[in-house]
């Protein structure tokens, strides 16, 4: 493989996958938060 500009290619691939990973982590955190909120609101409605 031609190694010219290999470092910048690596940065490009790294950046692309980093964006995907950050978004997936954000989705997972939001999922957990929503589940907790749903349980809380359900309990609130049941108490009333």
């Amino acid at each position, binding site marked *: *493989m*031609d*190694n*010219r*500009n*290999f470092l*910048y*290619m690596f*940065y*490009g*691939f790294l*950046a*692309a996958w980093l*964006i*995907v990973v950050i*978004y*997936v982590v954000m*989705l997972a955190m*939001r*999922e957990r938060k*929503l*589940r907790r*909120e*749903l349980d809380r*609101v*359900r309990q*609130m*409605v049941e108490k*009333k």
Partner: protein
Amino acid sequence: MRDKILYALAAIAAVLLARNLYIIFFVLGEEKNQGAIWRIFEFHFPAGILGLSGFIVATIFSVVYLMSGNLKYDSIAAAINEVSLMFAAIVLVTGSIWARIIWGVWWAWEARLTSMLICWLIFAGYLMLRRAIEEPTQRARLSAVVCIFGGIDAVIVYKSIEWYRTLHPGPVLTIRGGGGMPPGWQETAYWNLLAMLCLATILVMVRMRQENVSREIDSLRRAAHAY
């Protein structure tokens, strides 16, 4: 059933991505002038197609919401827009890194790049707007209008390399009348598009599920206050 579809899509995406990475690094030939950096195209192009087509599909759902008033369509549009924004971010970042080597600058204020940045900002604003408005119907109506503006810009971004001949390369794919790619590059880019489409579908399905849970929380809250 839905989880099974998600796992199946994840498996297909993983296999395709592994295959494509192998081909990109070990099978495809070199580009005489660019060195290794050309390989960014194999991710830049699929991310661009998914980002722009996602914005346009979301715009159609926003129009359907405005006509029907059914919040389900607003949820679908929001889910697609968020995932498309992620792909648009990949396009901007990978394009900028490629430009640093090929053009000698990280950024140029030319038609394709500027319209893409505006598109990204419109949809980032769309998501911020959604967070700022509590009332679901008002949120859906206003964000649908913003989405339509963004959708129009997405079409301009897509056509900009034909309408304006500036720094960004013109169409290179044969489907758009180009022909400036060595054998195998184009096919690999399409295979990567398929892999990333599987990934996008997974993310949109998860995001839609979250939108449904949010709507359930809203209706439960309203029910709690109604007692």
